[in-house]
């Protein structure tokens, strides 16, 4: 049997990779993908905990998280299109009109 901590550490590593992506990449779409990685890391945690406790809640929460991820993706991609239309660029650094 695989210890629970393995799953948790794996999901922690995935979450950290997701956060790193926000800083490493210079493309808004990849930034959104990084957030998706973070949400999936959390999903793994939920399912692992749920399995450990023998309850179904972990799995069900995962479905809700997927729904939220889908909703965020829809709005996020809508924004990406609107942004691209305005400036012909997907570099987050291109959008710094508001500052200080």
């Amino acid at each position, binding site marked *: 049997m695989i210890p629970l901590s393995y799953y*948790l550490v794996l999901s922690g590593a995935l979450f950290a990779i997701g956060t790193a992506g926000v800083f490493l990449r210079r493309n808004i779409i990849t930034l959104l993908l990084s957030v998706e990685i973070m949400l999936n890391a959390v999903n793994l945690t939920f399912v692992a905990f749920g399995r450990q406790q023998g309850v179904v809640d972990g799995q069900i929460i995962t479905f809700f998280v997927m729904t939220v991820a889908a909703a965020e993706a829809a709005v996020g991609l809508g924004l990406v299109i609107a942004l691209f239309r305005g400036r012909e660029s997907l570099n987050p650094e291109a959008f710094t009109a508001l500052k200080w």
Partner: protein
Amino acid sequence: MGTSAFDAVIPVICVTLAGLVVLLAESFRKKQERMPLGGLALIGLIGAVIACVLLWDRNATSFGMVTADNYALFVNLIILTVGILTVVFSQHTVERDGLPAGEYYALLLFAIVGMMLMVQATDLLLVFLALETMSIAVYVLTGIRFNDARGTEAAFKYFLLGAFASAFLLYGIAFLFGVTGTTSLDGIGTVVAAQSMSGNPMILAAIALLIVGFGFKVGVVPFHQWSPDAYEGAPALVTGFMSTGVKAAAMAAFARIFLSSLEPMITDWAPVLWGVAAITMILGTVVGVAQTNLKRMLAYSSIAHAGYLLVGIVAGNEVGKAAILFYLAAYALTNVAGFAIIGLLGTKAAPNDDLRDYAGLWHTHPALAGLMTIVLLSLGGFPPTAGFIAKWYIFSAAVGSGYYWLAIIGFLSSVVSVFFYLRIVVMMFMTERDARPVPLPVAASAMAGLAVTVAAILYLGILPSRVIDLAAASISTVF
């Protein structure tokens, strides 16, 4: 009225139905046909207000994850008031600025649904879903103006950072679920109270992650950086709505989770929130002093106010909990009115939100200048306005719990903050403008709404005891 399983969600259903009706009406609307969509929204919101009043003291619960205790109803009334005022102020500007009316009102109502559910939720999963519903609607509202680069940029920043912070919040919920085996607030409270958790790194990590998630939505330092940009880029009325509604809902959920379920661990998390509150109050004010854009200035002011609100959570005593509710009410009224005035005075083409645009406002819009003055005095905590009582109340709670330094920092920052509020007053009354622009016409309904709001601000400042009693009574049933 008999009790049924649906009682606790009746206010939410009212608002949801209004949102759906608005959306349907919009989709059957012919081009150039005018529909009273704002009126439809108002009907739903007022219905929800009535439902909230009727549910008072009944402590209804539904579906095992929604409660309608007085605490939730109190905050919901604040949120609904904010919603009603925003709709009233928007009537004129939506048409003037050419916003898509159906979508605008529908999203406003869906955001309110999310806010209300967030306050009423007794399950972390529902808190998260409601938070997302609210957030997604508000992200879109931020960028709802056609072909407005700044608005879209603001929406994008708000969205990306919001999604980032939500992931942290969700991770925190996952750990709480892992430790306690449940996402219900009561269940978590029972487990946390039963054994000492101070040495459990997982629950500490969960607390840290929850602070990040909620701190972001409330807008406290260092999770605040989205707010000046989002507040500046969004249409002013939306800014007024999100700076109050989102903050009220997130703060209420924050307080409910931390002061009920996680209350046994107050000695663990209070120092963290102490520090966050202190930096927030200082930074919000210091950076605010340097701003010349009015919306940005008020954004930093909102950051500072989030810090004052946190003081109530840190204090954690009875006075503090009631003070949070009172502060939310006072702050919501004041900020909605302040941003509404900015919104009424500016269009997309000429935002008129720079400090200099307010020079000599007293000569062009004497009534608006007078109302704005009271709003600013309330934000600065001058007696006899709501802001003064709210600040006094929240800091006396801090002193009551022995947090002298927090009170000292808080008062100091409120002293400094007066500089920038007063600069606007000076601009409006004591500065001449070379070329006076043609004054924008202001709708009578918006004017009336503003007058009522400002009257309420003064009422809360002069006769606050009824609302304070109400706040104190509504927390006694919860915590």
